[in-house]
């Protein structure tokens, strides 16, 4: 047994009073979860503490909260870990608050319908069957099903939505959970509308190009769904495979970024905007929209210079890195772009690094327990070979 102090953010909408913090002392083994501690408080001290919960085993997705400022499942966070990373130096205080980016209903309960589920609805969250629907099952490569199973593993707890920085700035951003849900259909070979889905999300000013790669959603997700990775994959399929050039300029901006690093080894700030509009075309750089955006950005540029965030000379004429380093950067590009297909990381496929050995050492008797074979490695995706080769020539 160990003693912990649970510091809960309380809010009673009927009291007319502002939220406040209340501390509860509890005695529990260190490996027990924060949820068990809260349930102990409810059972023994104050039954009015509000928290959604059901399965206690990180599968129902009810108990999303912020623990010491970071979103996660209460049932999935050990007390000792939470206390160690706590906001107080005493090593025993655990701060529990409702998730962010969503209105609070009471105590630790937030209104998920108003934000999370609304965004899920936004991405047409159902399979649109490829026609004709077969009499039996669709024939789908094993790897594709495993691939979408990573996003199927999402339990809709809202932790990623809670900690999404882009959504904090742009509440209309479709967000990490809904984007992962979108990938679940985009990556599913049985879906008929891959292109339409991607076009929709690329053209939406609050769509996939609104993500700023802060990694918060990956950190917050208790199930390894890695929503940001799914957003990047949506972008890659939209840009490389379908050549969707969106009116938000997201695709060209990303392309400009990638080509600038290839050419200079570091970002060439002054070139980024023109190239985002004109690509490698010299004339395209004088796109009127680019001028407008440059004008809009000027205050930021001025502030940046004044505070010494960047040196005007380097920004204007580009960075110079030693030629050996630049060569090394180019070698990375050649290696990545030279692959016959994109290598996509997936939780269920990639697993851990030493798994190849383990698979190699599989006992024949154990293998015969399955009715079918196992994949030896992530194989090529037969549904996208032409698209992949197109992207290389592009």
């Amino acid at each position, binding site marked *: 047994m160990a003693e912990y102090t649970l510091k809960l953010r309380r809010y009673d909408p009927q009291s007319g009073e502002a939220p406040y913090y209340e501390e509860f002392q509890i005695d529990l083994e260190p490996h027990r979860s924060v949820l068990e501690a809260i349930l102990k408080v409810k059972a023994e001290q104050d039954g009015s503490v509000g928290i959604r919960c059901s399965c206690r085993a990180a599968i129902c997705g009810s108990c999303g909260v912020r623990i010491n400022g970071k979103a996660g499942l209460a049932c999935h966070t050990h007390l000792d870990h939470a206390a160690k990373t706590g906001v107080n130096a005493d090593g025993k205080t655990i701060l529990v608050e409702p998730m962010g980016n969503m209105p609070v209903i009471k105590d630790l309960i937030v209104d998920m319908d108003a934000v999370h589920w609304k965004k899920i609805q936004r991405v047409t969250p159902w399979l649109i069957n490829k026609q004709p629907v077969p009499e039996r099952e669709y024939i789908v490569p094993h790897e594709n099903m495993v691939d979408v199973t990573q996003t*199927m593993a999402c339990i809709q707890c809202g932790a990623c939505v809670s900690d999404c920085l882009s959504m904090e700035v742009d509440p209309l951003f479709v967000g990490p959970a809904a984007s992962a849900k979108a990938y679940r259909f985009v990556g599913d070979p049985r879906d008929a509308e891959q292109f339409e889905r991607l076009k929709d999300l690329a053209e939406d000013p609050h769509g996939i190009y609104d993500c700023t790669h802060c990694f918060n959603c990956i950190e917050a997700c208790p199930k390894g769904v890695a929503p940001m990775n799914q957003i990047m994959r949506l972008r890659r399929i939209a840009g490389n495979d379908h050549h969707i050039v969106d009116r938000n300029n997201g695709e060209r901006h990303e392309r400009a970024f990638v080509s600038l690093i290839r050419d200079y080894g570091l970002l060439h700030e002054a070139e980024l905007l023109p190239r985002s509009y004109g690509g490698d075309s010299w004339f395209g750089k004088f796109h009127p929209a680019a001028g407008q955006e440059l004008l809009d950005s000027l205050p930021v540029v001025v502030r940046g210079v004044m505070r010494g965030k960047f040196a005007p000379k380097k920004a204007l004429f580009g960075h110079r890195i030693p030629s050996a380093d630049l060569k090394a950067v180019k070698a990375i590009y050649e290696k990545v772009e030279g692959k016959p297909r994109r290598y996509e990381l997936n939780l269920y496929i990639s697993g851990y690094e030493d798994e190849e050995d383990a698979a190699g050492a599989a006992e024949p008797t154990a293998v015969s327990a399955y009715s079918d074979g196992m994949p030896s490695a992530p194989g090529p995706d037969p549904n996208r070979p032409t698209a992949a080769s197109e992207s290389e020539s592009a």
Partner: protein
Amino acid sequence: MPAHDVLIIGAGLAGQRAALAAADAGASVAILSKVHPVRSHSVAAAGGINAALNPEDSWESHAFDTVKGSDYLGDQDAIEIMCREAPDEILWLEHAGVTFHRNGTGHLGTRAFGGASQARTYYVADITGQAILHVLYERLMMHGDRISRYEEWFTTTLLQDESGACVGCVARDIRTGALEVFNAKSVILASGGAGQAFKPTTNALICTGDGIAQAYRIGAPLMDMEMIQYHPTTLAENGFLITEGARGEGAHLYNALGERFMEKYAPNKLELASRDVVSRAEQTEINEGRGFPDGTIALDITKVPRKRTLEALREIVNIGKDFAGVDITREPIHIKPGMHYIMGGVKTDFDGQTPIPGLYAAGEVACVSVHGGNRLGANSLLDTLIFGRRSGDHAAQRARGTAMPKSPVSVLSDAQGEIDAILNRPTGGRRVSEIKNELGETMNRYVAVYRDEAGLATAREIVQRLKQEAPNAAIDDKGTIFNQDVLAAIELGYMLDVAEAIVMAAQERRESRGAQFRTDFPTRNDADWLHHITVSLNGDGPALGTAPVTITKWEPQERTY
């Protein structure tokens, strides 16, 4: 006052499947649940769903395995329907978008499961329930124009008209505390099981027997209530489930002496004998001193290739790591039998109809009975979907020829009066949580794998005392918005009703069959007990009855694995 052709209470797999079927049949549908639908406990179903879909398999084989698994207490006509319709249901799910595991040729692949003579379990890693539940919810969103969703509404009472037909319910909007009358031509209960009457249990906190008790209170008979499934592999400390899929993939069970003891109890099927057999074997090993000091058995998943475990059993890798501190790919994990499922429930026919006109039940809340004395692993998802669909379909047909009922508003003030009485209870009495704990520990002690008359009589006494105490149990929260305290007090009453029925039926069945093993009557006795036991409310108290078992093709035989 919302009015719908078909009202479904509970939004797990059975409820959602019923809603989709009823909407398909042209009915206006409401689906109401005390939690958001994807939080329903179906989400925790791990291993898979059975169907004889391979050409070399047959529905007869599936049906026989189910009959044998039920220890001949399952109704064979219902089992036949379930097994015949299973393949089409799998294909329906596949077309709806479930990401079922594929084999090397891109076709649906299967895994082995307990009590089955073929590998006929279709699955999505070890998140099958979650994958299906979330896909059904996708379909609910797709049909949002025809299916009204009432998420986070708590049903307090089922309503009846003068003739006794069920015509809707009263429910509380958990977010506001407001009560509302729901009128409906047909009502389908799909509110799941009652595992929380036991402690520990694999079941979620929401599994409090609401629907079973609500139906019982308006006169519907309960059946097979003594049949409580103890799952062979649950974590000792908190009761969390380790999927049968682990043994399906090749994991072994060992006692503390390092013996693979299932060789003794089920020489042919070993770890993949039916659940009652494996749980009893484990309990025997533990009781006879061959378990580990903490009263457990070792489940060795390291027999399964690590890559396969990481891909197909990912969830239990996480459970081992997060909740037991064990890397299951490297070392055995300690488990023991734990309460998992209730085979019994509200008695229905194979269209989900209860004896109360207009009231249907499907899924764990119901007893068709396809599971009889013991449910086979991966048959529960099938049960929810097949009988959920059939209930939804039948309820929609029934609604077509029925006028929309209208309950008097007085039912609202009655329901409000009950809630006010809870809110106005004096403080200082025993807490709801204390009574619930005592109930759970009592049931798990006396109504578990091994039972006898003395223990059951003790359990009954305790349950009856707790029933006296419960109406005075104190609560803290007096508010209306998300008052979980008041709901817990109502749920406690439901669990006590269900527990009483379980104990009475277990006392009544003086033989050993399926999940019911009586040390004082250790053999199966077909001459006297090859029938269902029912419990129904008679006046103020429960009354026992019987119902015949339907036997079509398969005469009872001795049961060995």
